């Protein structure tokens, strides 16, 4: 009885983190109910970047949608348009030339590396602070990312909203110069990424901050629809590139890195290993790039409007954050009747409410960062 009265007297301390907060990775608001430094329960608020893409795309032609979607998950823009275009191609039975498919994989894997680099860099910032070691990791990661963006710029003309994919193929071709630059990039990145991987997987402070913090059980991941590194960190072998291969991923040999504990450390390590696997894929693309056409359709201005047959279709691809799917309902016209984006970050982030109670404030930041949400993807 007495205990209860004391608890009532002090009550909870409700602390608002965000929407403007250095470590919410964008615009996200967490209301933490604290008891001392321990979190009692959490309320989360999102939608600060809700741009109504689903409604907007109901008023756009199919060919107009990919550039809009590229602004969605802004760390890996290509995978957004890739997922959408794969869905449309399956609906309309459009063949893609092999060279185009190879180029799509090339760009997508390069952006997977750059996306994981940003995730790692900002994670370092979460752990470290402004002038500390964390900021150094952030700056190193962004330095390597700049090199990748340079190559993307030589191939497509833009830094990261590449607009590379179009229905039926790709827009831009690679030439000798850009291939040479890509080779140089791979040679440069390989030792660097291995070095970061070694540093992180053996760093005492990093391990102390992340090991056994935010352990996600297999059941929780599955029932929440978690995917990508979050699921693989918990030991679930689910990667759509292998399970239900799209494009030409079947032609390449690569491994799916897995964690075992499902803690923040495992998720970060899985991301780091994935970058190394992506490099393997890029090497194979470069060594076996076939000749051929870039696109099976006419150029956009003279091509017919796409009109998929009536019905619904769902197709998912593996974006750096997980299963990115598109559920499209077509009424036979040139605009989708309804388009649902199955956003990986949205499902991954929904775990946070169940994960945080019982941890400390400092861990809350670590856990949120390890889920790597992108708010353009969460709020759409």
């Amino acid at each position: 009885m007495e205990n209860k009265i004391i608890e009532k007297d002090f009550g909870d301390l409700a602390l608002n983190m965000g929407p403007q907060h250095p470590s919410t990775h964008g615009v996200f608001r967490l209301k933490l109910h604290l008891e001392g430094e321990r979190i009692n329960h959490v309320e989360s608020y999102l939608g600060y970047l809700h741009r109504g893409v689903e409604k907007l795309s109901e008023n756009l032609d199919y060919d107009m949608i990919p550039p809009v979607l590229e602004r969605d998950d802004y760390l890996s823009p290509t995978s957004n348009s890739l997922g959408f275009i794969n869905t449309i191609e399956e609906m309309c039975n459009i063949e893609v030339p092999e060279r185009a498919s190879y180029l799509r994989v090339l760009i997508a894997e390069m952006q997977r590396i750059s996306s994981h680099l940003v995730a790692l860099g900002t994670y370092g910032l979460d752990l470290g602070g402004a002038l500390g070691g964390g900021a150094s990791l952030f700056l190193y990661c962004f330095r390597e990312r700049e090199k990748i963006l340079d190559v993307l710029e030589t191939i497509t003309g833009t830094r990261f909203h590449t607009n590379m994919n179009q229905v039926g193929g790709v827009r831009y071709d690679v030439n000798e110069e850009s291939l040479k630059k890509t080779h140089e990039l791979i040679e440069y990145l390989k030792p660097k990424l291995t070095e970061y991987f070694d540093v992180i997987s053996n760093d005492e402070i990093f391990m102390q901050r992340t090991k056994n913090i935010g352990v996600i059980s297999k059941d929780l991941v599955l029932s929440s629809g978690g995917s990508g590194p979050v699921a693989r960190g918990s030991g679930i072998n689910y990667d759509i590139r292998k399970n239900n291969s799209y494009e030409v991923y079947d032609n390449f040999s690569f491994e799916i890195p897995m964690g075992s504990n499902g803690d923040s450390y495992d998720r970060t390590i899985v991301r780091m290993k994935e970058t190394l696997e992506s490099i393997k894929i890029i090497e194979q693309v470069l060594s076996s790039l076939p000749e051929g056409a870039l696109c099976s359709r006419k150029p956009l201005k003279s091509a017919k409007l796409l009109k998929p047959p009536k019905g619904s279709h769902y197709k998912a691809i593996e974006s750096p954050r997980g299963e990115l799917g598109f559920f499209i309902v077509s009424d036979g016209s040139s605009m989708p009747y309804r388009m649902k984006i199955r956003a990986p970050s949205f499902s991954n982030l929904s775990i946070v409410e169940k994960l945080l109670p019982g941890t400390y404030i400092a861990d809350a930041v670590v856990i949120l960062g390890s889920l790597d949400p992108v708010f353009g993807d969460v709020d759409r």
Partner: protein
Amino acid sequence: MGIFIEFALPIFKTISILILIVAYLVWLERKVAAKMQSRIGPYLVGKPHGLLQPLADALKLMLKDDSSPKNSDRLLFNFGPIWVMVVSLASFALLPFIFDNQMINTNLALMLFIAISSLIIVGIFIAGWSSNNKFALISVIRIIAQIISYEIPLIITLLVPCIIMGSLGFSEIISYQKNSWFIFYPIIGQITFIIFFISSLAEGNRIPFDLSEAESELVSGYTTEYSGIKFALFYLAEYVHLFGISVLGSIIF
């Protein structure tokens, strides 16, 4: 006039030199950190290597509007930064760091220095409490817990050389080390120095003991609600205190 020359002038001299040193320490920190992170650091403000950067920062902070949050305790809110600055400067009265003779020369200088510098925490507490901001409050709780717990090893390590040298006055300690520094004293010297170094990092809230200002969690700690000149005072006081501890370290060891 005689009193003025005797008391005010050395104080003025010390403070102005101190602030200049501290300002350029901040500049140096930014430059060195930039070098480590393969950046350039301050460069364009004051042409050779951004030498005027601290001046511009200080001037700008002075020009900024003053604000105090709603429902805050105005008196304490304004009093906090002044307290912190005054106390951290006051501790320098005891340290012989610029000229040969310190301003106050007593046998108990070390004792007094510890006593004064531990008063800083009071100012920080006042600042955090009166801000009426939860981030500041949590930060202050953390900083008090941290500084109080690290002050004990700090004081104990400082007592070791004092027992060996047999004095608490700085001039005696210095003259004792005429031939060899205390850090070279076999075994004890090195151990005490390592403990002193670690706990002084905690005292000065530097990385990895920057819990109170953990930028990723607590925005910017107890200074979250402070702007303009008051923030500048905190910023300076933090570095002055840090410099003070470093000077102390170089005297003792």
